[in-house]
């Protein structure tokens, strides 16, 4: 594999990993709100979260550009206050990957939270556990398989994300060219098939091992929490 291939692989793992880690607490919070709380605008929040799942990725990417471009209101605000530039940078690729993987993460976690019997949590409260302790000792262990499943799905989505990323941050080698966009651009030049095939094999290997690891982990967790 050539240097550009390695660079695309490194960047893909960096972008997907960062996006997954950043999205994880946020997705858990949203899943909790949707599963357990009733509030005004709940359907609206749910729709907003699920939007990237139903919109064409190119549209999502374009909307991101409209909001987070260097001349766009949010983009300019972020640059002036935090010095954070998203458009055409790897940070923007992270944002695109987060947005695209987010609905999948929320869905898996929401289902897991809904499966936890609130009466079990009430029992923990009567035994003297404050609310945060109930979450840490009862809820969290019980929803761990759902969190894991959501994380794996979010990571896989981030790794494969193409349309929104290429629209929002283009495919600048070393900056924003992830595995999918590298494969795509190799296929655009004559004689690039071999290099594209190499990267395709790597993408397959990562995806398959992620699934295997998550299956193994979820079996272990299920055995530990007595759900199997």
């Amino acid at each position, binding site marked *: 594999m050539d240097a550009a291939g390695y660079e695309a692989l490194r960047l893909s793992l960096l972008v997907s990993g960062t996006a997954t880690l950043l999205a994880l607490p946020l997705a858990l919070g949203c899943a909790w709100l949707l599963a357990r709380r009733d509030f005004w605008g709940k359907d609206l929040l749910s729709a907003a979260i699920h939007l990237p799942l139903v919109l064409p990725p190119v549209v999502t990417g374009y909307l991101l550009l409209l909001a987070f471009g260097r001349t766009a209101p949010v983009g300019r605000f972020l640059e002036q206050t935090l010095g954070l530039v998203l458009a055409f940078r790897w940070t923007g690729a992270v944002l695109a990957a987060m947005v695209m993987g987010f609905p999948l993460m929320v869905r898996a976690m929401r289902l897991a939270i809904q499966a936890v019997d609130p009466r*079990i949590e009430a029992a923990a409260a*009567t035994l003297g556990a404050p609310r945060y302790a109930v979450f840490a000792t009862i809820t969290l*262990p019980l929803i761990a398989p759902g969190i894991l499943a959501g994380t794996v799905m979010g990571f896989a989505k981030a790794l494969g994300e193409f349309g929104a990323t290429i629209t929002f941050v283009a495919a600048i080698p070393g900056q924003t060219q992830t595995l999918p966009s590298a494969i795509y651009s190799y296929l655009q030049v004559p004689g690039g098939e071999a290099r594209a095939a190499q990267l395709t094999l790597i993408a397959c290997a990562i995806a398959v091992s992620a699934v295997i690891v998550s299956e193994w982990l979820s079996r272990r967790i299920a055995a530990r929490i007595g759900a199997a």
Partner: protein
Amino acid sequence: MSLSVDIEHRFDGFTLKAAFEAPPGVTALFGRSGAGKTTLVNAVAGLLRPDAGRITLKDRVLLDSAAHICLPPHRRRLGYVFQDARLFPHLSVAANLDYGTRYASGGGTAMSRSDVIDLLGLAPLLDRRPRHLSGGETQRVAIGRALLSRPEMLLMDEPLAALDATRKADILPYLERLKTAYNLPILYVSHALDEIARLADTLVLLADGRVHSAGPIRTLLSDPALVPVLGVREAGAVIDARVTHHADDGLTTLRIAAGDLYLPGVQAHVGDVVRVRIRAGDVIIARERPKGLSSVNILPVTVTAVQMGDGPGAAIALDAAGDALLARITARSARDLGLQAGMPCFAVLKATSVAQASIGQHLP
């Protein structure tokens, strides 16, 4: 006074407006399903916030809606045993038992872990997971878990309702032991009068969201006016009797003030005091001492009250040398015998009809 409750709560077109006091000992909340029992206990536990009211435990205020005080469940220090146990599925029995210990502050009833494990016979279960326990074992673990959180009072919401008769009979002795072993007040919710007759010291009768009557269990269970509320088949007095002799034919002699009772299948030791429940329907009244009768349990009694029912039945309150008994006969018989308060007569108890479960066991 241990617990004092006075609350009002409206939900789904149902109004619960109940006030009662629970002195030390076992206080039973009795009523049909839908009478508001569980709502009441949940309000005491803090799992439900009533529209208005005040709940105090000893000198601690748990709820005072006028003062905007409502302690969250984890600060109420009440052990709650749920009908459906609610063990933590991801923790072993040992970890379930220890769950409340880490949050328990001082105070409350001090019970060592080993004492509780011995009392409830939990030692062989410690390494198991809740899903590998039988119904009875599950409920015993739930009781142990509640006890080890060092509660100031134990709330039990139909802890035996999900169990079959055999499992029930297995657990009742543990509850009786619990009652005598620790000086822990218990609020016990049930719609099964046999459990209540065995365990309770105080009875609170709940009907349609209101407290119908409340008081010492012996007084209420022998009140002929309450027979329709308690259920004509289930009504009956409880009396304490001392075991004096086990005969070879299986009958045990029990001494009460009015004389001796001979009952089968009593497990207690000689010298023990047991609680005997005598269903009103199992008592026959005779004006003169009957002769040539198969029953050996004949007690001289005095009629204290005659309560004619709406139907063909009548409830007769009897005094047997200080012990209150209750008989349910037909209104026609009551008229034919001319029963009225102050009249001496004889109560005939059918010994074989006193069920095993009606006899409380006093365990060491």
